């Protein structure tokens, strides 16, 4: 094997010495790639070169051979750096596999079922910017037309955010109450988060409790992107503001709650800041642009509207999401 490489190289060198043609250099470079693929180190290349030269031009003065010896010594560190690259590539591949698996686990762990509610059409899309999603949507519902929805966003992305989310989920699971009042839910989850996570980790959360019988939504917010109400009658958009600190800031935080009544064709739009803080080359994408995207599709099913907004925003951002994207639309039908 080594023998074969040596003689291949000698042939390349011999031809190059005769002609110095571009073809010879091309052959040399292709050969060097093959050497790298076989983990041949640069010091071995110099050594092989020296040996081939010695065979072909044995009468060259000693300084030439000495000079190659110094080059071999110089290349040892380069060879080590090359081996390090090999192991880094391998490690990167391992991490990629691990991340994929973790993303799967997270998905299974955090899965939630969109409820069926009389007179309500629900559209939902949550797309992570990287492998792991730091946004989270949680539903809880019963047979009598009560359903709670939590839309949360961990400040931070990737892995640490994903781990935090599992805590929010288990906090909600332990409440397990589809009629719980938003201010109480935010209160409980705030204490869970405050107690168990790192001081530098915060979660923003919108919580809405829907009553299908009365077509009302009672909502509260812990420092979360405000929900938007689209009124079909007036064709206007307005923000549903509600005061409250981010979850995890202070155990004493208090949360407000407010109620709106939905009329036919109204849209209740809940989201994370990944939807509103998209950027294109000219800066932030204006909120009005998003309103316009929704307005264009207002007569379509909720899932179609949600998808349309996502596709268009991604297009405007040159196919790059800088934050996790989560959008939920409740459409009163």
């Amino acid at each position, binding site marked *: 094997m080594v023998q074969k490489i040596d003689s291949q190289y000698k042939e390349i060198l011999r031809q190059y010495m005769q002609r110095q043609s*571009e073809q010879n250099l091309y052959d040399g470079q292709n050969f060097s790639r093959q050497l790298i*693929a076989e983990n041949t180190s640069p010091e071995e290349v110099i050594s092989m070169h020296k040996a081939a030269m010695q065979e072909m031009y044995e009468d060259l003065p000693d300084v030439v051979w000495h000079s190659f010896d110094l080059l071999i010594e110089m290349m040892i560190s380069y060879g080590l750096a090359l081996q390090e690259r090999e192991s880094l*590539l391998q490690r990167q591949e391992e991490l990629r596999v691990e991340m994929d698996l973790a993303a799967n686990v997270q998905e299974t762990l955090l899965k939630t079922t969109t409820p069926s509610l009389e007179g309500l059409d629900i559209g939902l899309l949550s797309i992570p910017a990287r492998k792991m999603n730091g946004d989270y949507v949680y539903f809880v519902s019963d047979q009598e037309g009560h359903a709670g929805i939590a839309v949360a966003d961990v400040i931070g992305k990737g892995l640490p955010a994903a781990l935090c989310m599992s805590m929010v989920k288990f906090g909600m699971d332990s409440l397990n109450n589809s009629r719980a009042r938003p201010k109480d839910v935010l209160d409980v989850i705030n204490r869970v988060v405050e107690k168990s996570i790192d001081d530098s980790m915060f979660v923003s959360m919108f919580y809405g409790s829907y009553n299908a019988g009365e077509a009302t939504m009672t909502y509260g917010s812990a420092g979360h992107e405000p929900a938007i109400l689209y009124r079909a009658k007036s064709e206007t958009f307005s923000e549903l503001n509600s005061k409250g600190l981010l979850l995890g800031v202070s155990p004493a935080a208090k949360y407000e709650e407010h109620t709106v009544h939905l009329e036919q064709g109204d849209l209740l739009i809940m989201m994370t800041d990944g939807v509103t803080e998209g950027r294109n080359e000219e800066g932030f994408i204006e909120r009005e642009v998003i309103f316009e995207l929704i307005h264009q599709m207002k007569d379509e099913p909720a899932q179609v509207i949600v998808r349309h907004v996502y596709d268009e925003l991604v297009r405007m951002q040159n196919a790059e999401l800088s934050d996790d994207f989560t959008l939920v639309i409740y459409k009163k039908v």
Partner: protein
Amino acid sequence: MSNQSSVEIQTEWDIVAARQLGRNVAKELGFGTVDQARITTAISELARNIYLYAGHGKIEIQRLTNNGMKGIMIIAADNGPGISDVRKVMEDGFSTSGGLGAGLPGVKRLMDEFKIDTTQGEGTDIRATKWLR
């Protein structure tokens, strides 16, 4: 100001012709041996990509002058299938570990500027520039 010449890429021999053209221009512009070899390698990669994935296309070599700076631009254009996931082919280790050589990240490293424009089903246009220092 620019001044151009080009090589059609259809067979592996054309890769060598494109390299030769690039090396000649680089030498005339005053690039040293190492930079000549780098520019030629970038051409090699781009021409090989055309040969392997698009079947045929063209390598153009332009001489550039900009505020007294001289440079060389390689344009690799084809009407092939296009690249479906640009982020992926620009990732380290994606092409090299497959034994395909330096790949596009390599071309980007060998040159000073790099721009890729690709549409699925329509083709790819890559421009890579190196300035003389």
